[in-house]
């Protein structure tokens, strides 16, 4: 195959990127484990320190992904923004439904705060992973 074919040209668009997708998926993994711990103790109070540690780990992973993302120069920001906003809308609705179920089930106090923050990280991490995966293969702006 000659290098002048359009297909060969598009192969060159695969650029190395920092592990942003892995970091945001790691954040998702932490909040999922935290959610399992909280849900498996319901209606009793779950051990909050463990869930808090997982929440903090998720926040650090997601913030690291955000920092690495913000430092990217050769990146299709237009595609990222376009995918991120719609995915955020979809996962905000899903998170809202789960939050509604917890509130309706009389989850209150620190447990509710933890659940809410975990759902916020869930609603941000999934769109970040999706939008980054799409934008990394998109043509540069």
């Amino acid at each position, binding site marked *: 195959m000659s290098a002048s074919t359009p297909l060969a040209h598009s192969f060159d668009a695969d650029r190395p990127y920092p592990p942003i997708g892995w970091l*945001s998926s790691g954040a998702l993994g932490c909040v999922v484990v935290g959610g399992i711990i909280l849900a498996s103790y319901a209606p009793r109070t779950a051990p909050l320190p463990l869930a808090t540690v997982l929440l903090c780990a998720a926040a650090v992973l997601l913030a690291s992904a955000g920092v690495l993302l913000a430092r990217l120069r050769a990146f299709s920001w237009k595609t990222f923004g376009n995918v991120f906003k719609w995915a955020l809308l979809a996962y905000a609705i899903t998170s809202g439904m789960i939050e509604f179920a917890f509130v309706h089930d009389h989850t209150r106090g620190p447990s509710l705060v933890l659940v809410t923050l975990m759902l916020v990280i869930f609603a941000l991490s999934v769109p970040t992973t999706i939008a980054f995966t*799409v934008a990394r*293969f998109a043509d540069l702006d």
Partner: protein
Amino acid sequence: MDDTVARDVATSADVATSAPPRPKIQVVPLAGLPFVGAAVLFVALSIGFNWQWGLMFNHVVGGGLWTGIDLFVGFVIGPILGRLSIPARAEFSARFMPKMAIIMPTIVMMTLATGFQVARSAGNLAASSPNHAWLVVSFCVVGIMAVIALGVLEPANIAVLYEMNKPVPNGERIGRLMKRFIYTAGITGAMQVATLIIMTRLGSR
């Protein structure tokens, strides 16, 4: 193996240059959104009014479809896709993936949002319940499936659709992303077998 990929890629290049202009793929089919809206409303009302039939309907129908689709895609569609040429995979995906992009999040939302409520009203959440341990195992299975599906499978699906909307899609890249889809669909399909065992056990005690 490399020859096969090279042949597939060359074929996809031929397709790209000789085929008539392709219609643009709608990543999220807008015609499906009213059904999603209706499902969200139904779930919200069922939870809000503690409507037992609504909760059970959403959980059983959503969970049944989720399990069935995962098993079918993982063990039937996935292996077939893996044996197709890259242009054929692209052609199939262009019609299949947008539907999955709207169906799967909706049935997952129906199942998960109502599942907690169903478990609570059935008394399975109580630590003293003989079903409690099985319930916690089901949380873990769903958690692993969620991370795989949301962290790997769905991003690959959407990336394939965007790639196919380019004027000259990269056949090798589509093949690579589709391989990711095929493997993860197989893993979630296998995990759904565990879900079937747990849920039928919970229902029969």
